[in-house]
């Protein structure tokens, strides 16, 4: 047996023994057969078998596991359901994956205060299901909501299709109880609307498991709207579709959902789900109103007027809940549809100012030619979050590599037009190089300083989300000054 392998096994035995002193035996996995399911998250292209997987069943075990690992200087990768799309939960070869999936109890559900106290392993949708009988629900609805957990949502600041009106995780969480790498408990936020001192809760949400491990969350629940209706509008030009979105907002309307799909996307999903999409339209807009019946009537009328005067070539309004779900089914199945027409697809997650949509789509079309790959675009038009789905076949030499370059190019473009490399999926390992484009070395240093404030030993999900300056130097792409397009004088169509 060669020396590195032997060293690895000695270290693994040491860590397993130490963890078994503080966790029940069935909560510590180390056989490759058992740890294999943890080798990747939703970004399956990146895999790494962890040295050990720890599955604590309560907060005391989380504290003990973290203290043990801190003492042994073993890095920890926290994990929820592993549905993340950016490799934030990808294991470290010499590290421990700490999954909070077994802490899955709803501690308290309270109608009067409209809050729920839940353990980190509770699934997003399970909260709304449990609150349904109270006439309440938890608003953020990432597309993985059937499987993803609230602990992961806190780590990623997850969004969904209703963010414009109802906000992201950061707007819907009152309190997070977490354990630092050193094993100290801290309560961020409170049962009230705010907490004394610095807003550490805001800094913690979306920190990709790098500042602490969540052990309990208090979420806000909101009343379920009485009714919801959606308009499906077709446009013969993406610019007109983009303008229509701006016109809706300018009219003082905040739709409950506002989504756009390009022609490639609607042609991709229509044969699959038969949502009734106009496959000749250059863009399809879904524009939803929710509230009390009279309010929705009023808003649908106003939105229809705006969309018509913005040049919609066809408009349909849902007249029943079944029809509303049918209109949405195409959008909600865009990712599976991509998987159906292409062996593999790579989902990007940039955010752009809405006004740049036409420019960005034009440039993405140019990149399709450059990289020889197709790209379907679905767009959370309300909040500017663009999900280009790059279609490729991993079995064809070089295609994944080209898809990666294509994706990085799109993200750079998002920064160039004043947007960001990730709207809701997180940086993880996937977009870590793109961070070098969005942030200057001093800004990256500030992020590291903040990380050290919570985790001085640098053991909690290290090497994710924030790139080292050395990594940026190797990546070789310079920080792009936001909002400043290169060659601004060149005409672009």
């Amino acid at each position, binding site marked *: 047996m060669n020396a590195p392998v032997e060293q690895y096994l000695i270290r693994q035995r040491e860590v397993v023994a130490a963890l078994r002193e503080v966790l029940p035996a069935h909560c510590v996995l180390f056989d490759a057969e058992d740890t294999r399911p943890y080798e990747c998250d939703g970004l399956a292209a990146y895999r790494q078998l962890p040295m050990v997987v720890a599955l604590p069943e309560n907060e005391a075990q989380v504290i003990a596991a973290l203290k043990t690992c801190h003492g042994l200087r073993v890095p920890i990768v926290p994990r929820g359901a592993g549905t993340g799309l950016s490799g934030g939960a990808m294991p470290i070869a010499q590290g421990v994956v700490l999954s909070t999936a077994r802490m899955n109890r709803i501690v308290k559900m309270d109608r*009067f205060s409209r809050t729920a106290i839940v353990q980190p392993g509770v699934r997003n949708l399970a909260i709304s299901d449990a609150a349904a009988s109270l006439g309440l629900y938890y608003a953020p609805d990432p597309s993985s909501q059937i499987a993803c957990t609230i602990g992961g949502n806190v780590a990623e600041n997850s969004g969904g299709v209703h963010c414009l009106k109802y906000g992201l995780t950061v707007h819907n969480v009152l309190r997070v109880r977490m354990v630092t790498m050193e094993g100290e408990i*801290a309560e961020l936020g409170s049962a009230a609307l705010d907490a004394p001192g610095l807003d550490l809760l805001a800094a913690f949400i979306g920190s990709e498991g790098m500042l602490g491990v969540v052990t309990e969350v208090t979420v806000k629940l909101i009343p379920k709207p009485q009714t919801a209706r959606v308009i499906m509008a077709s446009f013969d030009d993406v610019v007109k579709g983009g303008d229509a979105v701006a016109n809706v907002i300018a009219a003082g309307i905040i739709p409950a959902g506002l989504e756009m799909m390009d022609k490639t996307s609607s042609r991709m999903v229509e044969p699959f789900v038969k949502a009734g999409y106009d496959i000749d339209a250059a863009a399809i807009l879904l524009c939803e109103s929710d509230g009390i019946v009279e309010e929705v009537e009023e808003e649908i009328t106003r939105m229809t007027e705006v969309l018509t005067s913005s040049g919609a070539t066809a408009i349909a309004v849902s007249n029943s809940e079944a029809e509303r779900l049918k209109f949405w089914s195409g959008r909600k199945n865009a990712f599976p549809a991509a998987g159906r027409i292409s062996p593999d697809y790579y989902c990007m997650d940039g955010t752009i100012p809405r006004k740049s949509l036409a420019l960005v789509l034009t440039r993405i079309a140019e990149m399709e030619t450059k990289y020889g790959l197709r790209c379907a675009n679905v767009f959370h038009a309300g909040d500017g979050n663009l999900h280009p789905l790059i279609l490729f076949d991993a079995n064809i030499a070089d295609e994944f590599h080209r898809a990666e370059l294509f994706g990085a190019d799109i993200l750079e473009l998002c920064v160039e037009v004043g947007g960001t490399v990730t709207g809701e999926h*997180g940086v993880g390992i996937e977009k870590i190089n793109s961070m070098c484009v969005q942030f200057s070395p001093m800004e990256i240093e500030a992020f590291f300083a903040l990380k050290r404030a919570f985790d001085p030993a640098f053991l909690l999900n290290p090497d994710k989300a924030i790139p080292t300056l050395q990594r940026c130097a190797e990546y070789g792409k310079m920080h792009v000054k936001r909002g400043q397009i290169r060659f601004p004088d060149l005409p672009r169509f």
Partner: protein
Amino acid sequence: MENVLKEFRERIQAAATARKALRIVGSGSKDWYGNVPQGELLDTRAYSGIVSYEPTELVVTARCGTPLLEIEAALAEHNQMFAFDPPHFGDGATLGGVVACGLSGPRRQAAGALRDFVLGAVLMDGKGEVLHFGGQVMKNVAGYDVSRLLTGSMGILGLMLEASIKVLPRPTAETTLRFAMSQAEALQHLNDWGGQPLPISASAWENNMLLVRLSGAVAAVNAARRKLGGEDVGKAAALWDDLREQRSAFFVDTSHIPLWRLSVPSTAQPLSLQGTQLIEWGGAQRWLRADLPAQQIRAAAEAVGGHATLFRGGDKHSGVFHPLTPTLAMLHRNVKDAFDPARIFNPGRLYADL
């Protein structure tokens, strides 16, 4: 503006070298808030102006010294607003001061707090470096959310040069209703209503009288008015403005009795503390005018899961903000050192050791 930035940088670098404190101030409209300001004055007002405002993107970016009135006037032209309803507490209030103090007004009840609307910030740190965090877009998870961390930080982490804030359309219709009821009844009703799809945008209970404002589409406001009953107050905009600016009778007290702000769960039972109370945010923000030991007030807030701030007047010696647990205090010191290792920015304004 480059020369203003240059001056800021030189002042900060000199202060860092000499380890001398800087007191960051806009118009000084909120100098009375928080612990007593210390250090040499750094006036932000030369760095002023709206950098960008695109109504259809629902975001405004302005420099720290920009008067709040100027920004709100620009928003009003497009029938938009800061939905968190920032108190001015003085005509000269600047955006920097608003964000640093992190205060929100009556509309916060439904719309959310200032921190919920902050999308990005530009910071000059303790080395005089200009750092960009967040941006102008609503969904952004690249890097830690430093811009929200700066909100309400009382300027202790650095000089905030610019902030990007989400704006919203003004509601089409607004109506204010009045109900005669006790505090316990008001809390019961406010929390009951909170669990129903009603367009309640603000509330205020005082002296056995509850005011509730409805905001939204005409149809929604009318339907809610029919459902809730109560007496229509008529033109009430000035009333809510006075509440936000603390110009109403409850706040304009000449007795020199300290004013406390208790932030508690909205469902907390009436607090049995001697003194007068005014309750906002559906029960979650309780103003208390009382001459009681700080410890007693803090204990009462803590007992129901909240915290208390000595808002105006009183003895600031033991600190105006609620004491932190040891772990949180340690994290605060670490975060302070991460951004301001020389400890020059607004020392003591938030907590004595920061």
